[in-house]
């Protein structure tokens, strides 16, 4: 496919268009994704999660500059929610990421969730693959830390950065359940507001080593540009840890497993949204209602006779 060749040559316009094709579930998207897949797997994917307004975009903006100085090509996929009522969205992360202008080594894409639950869009990690194929070395994925999204991002990224801001001691105790288990790196941002030291040591006290990696706590002020080098170093250190100890392979397997399940679910859903299948499906629904069959047996029969979309 022409668009795939262009992406592989580093054409940003083609990459932008291919990401839209994937988001819109365009007819050529599946074929294009299959064609780029062998060219992916090189980029280091770093997820950013944390409460709204904590400074994720501002930090990523600073990190882009820091990693550009270190001669890495940097990509960003920044996800914001779609309005469930109108299907529209206002995507504002880019406002804070405008320092890099026309730098050819940077690609930033804003993405709406489009009804996908969990703070990520269905297309988010396919867009990551497009950036990977485009030749980007380091890809940041920003998601609003709400509900399921932390877990989702942690199971798909190589490195997960959890961003918090200074809070009183009690608030630290009340950190959202699960948040201490998913981060590879913790950031206390907005140190310029004060209270960061006790927040950081409280966090540090609660964090435990997992599989030979003890998550560091880094203090930053995206506003003043402080702690950015340390955060960049921590990200690189985690990369070396993953590559050195087999963690990379394990995370890639986790991701592959998840994407395989998701693809299967999607195919099944498509098979049943197809019009004729829909009719058959509705007949079975009727049979279940009148107790001619039960849901589990009917599911088995339907799956046995399933015709997948081409």
């Amino acid at each position, binding site marked *: 496919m022409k668009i795939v060749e262009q992406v592989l040559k580093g054409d*940003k*316009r083609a*990459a*932008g*268009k291919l*990401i*839209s094709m994937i*988001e*819109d*579930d*365009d007819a050529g998207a599946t074929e294009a994704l299959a064609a780029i897949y062998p060219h992916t797997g090189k980029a280091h994917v770093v997820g950013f999660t944390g409460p709204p307004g904590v400074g994720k975009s501002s930090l990523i903006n600073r990190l882009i500059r820091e990693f550009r100085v270190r001669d890495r090509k940097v990509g960003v996929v920044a996800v914001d929610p*779609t*309005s469930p009522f*109108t*299907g*529209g*969205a*206002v*995507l*504002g992360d*880019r*406002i*804070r*990421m*405008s*320092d890099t*202008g*026309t730098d050819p080594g940077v*690609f*930033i*894409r*804003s993405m*709406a969730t*489009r009804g996908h639950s969990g703070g990520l869009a269905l297309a988010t990690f396919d867009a990551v693959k497009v950036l990977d194929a485009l030749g980007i070395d380091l890809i940041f994925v920003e998601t609003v830390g709400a509900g399921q999204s932390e877990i989702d991002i942690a199971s798909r990224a190589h490195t997960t950065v959890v961003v918090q801001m200074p809070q009183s001691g009690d608030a630290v105790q009340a950190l959202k359940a699960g948040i201490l288990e998913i981060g590879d790196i913790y950031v206390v941002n907005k140190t310029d507001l004060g209270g960061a030291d006790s927040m950081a040591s409280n966090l540090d006290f609660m964090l435990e080593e997992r599989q030979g990696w003890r998550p560091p706590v880094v203090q930053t002020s995206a506003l003043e540009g402080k702690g950015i080098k340390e955060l960049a170093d921590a990200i690189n250190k985690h990369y070396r840890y993953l590559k050195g100890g087999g963690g990379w392979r394990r995370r890639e397997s986790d991701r592959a497993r998840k994407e395989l399940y998701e693809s299967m679910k999607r195919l099944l859903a498509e098979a049943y949204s197809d019009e004729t299948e829909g009719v058959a499906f509705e007949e079975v629904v009727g049979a279940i209602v009148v107790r001619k069959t039960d849901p589990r047996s009917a599911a088995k029969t339907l799956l046995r006779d399933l015709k997948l979309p081409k």
Partner: protein
Amino acid sequence: MAKKIRVLMAKPGLDGHDRGAKVVARALRDAGMEVIYTGLRQSPEDIVEAAIQEDVDAIGLSSLSGAHMALFPEVVKVLKKRGAGDILVVAGGIIPDDDIPKLKKAGIKAVFGPGTPLADIVAFFRSSAK
């Protein structure tokens, strides 16, 4: 999934705040479109770069500072240079009547003054952005 209309809202120049652009952004969102804000103080080159990465159908430029004659046609020019001449450019904000024909001649597809009904703006994006 149907194709979504994506619009980049940009404010070239040094405008501080711009409520008009925000109101339009919300109206487009409520019409089911995806609106992406660029950063502040963006040059025409920055705006075009963002439009390409975001693969938008249209760029909405808004200006209150009177710099529109210098900046808006430049955006159209840079788009063409980057092979993205199919991205629509529209303008809003306070623009003197005399400048409107000049902007249109320079490739700005529509100019929406402060009194334009939101429904008209929404309808324009719907019908023009494929």
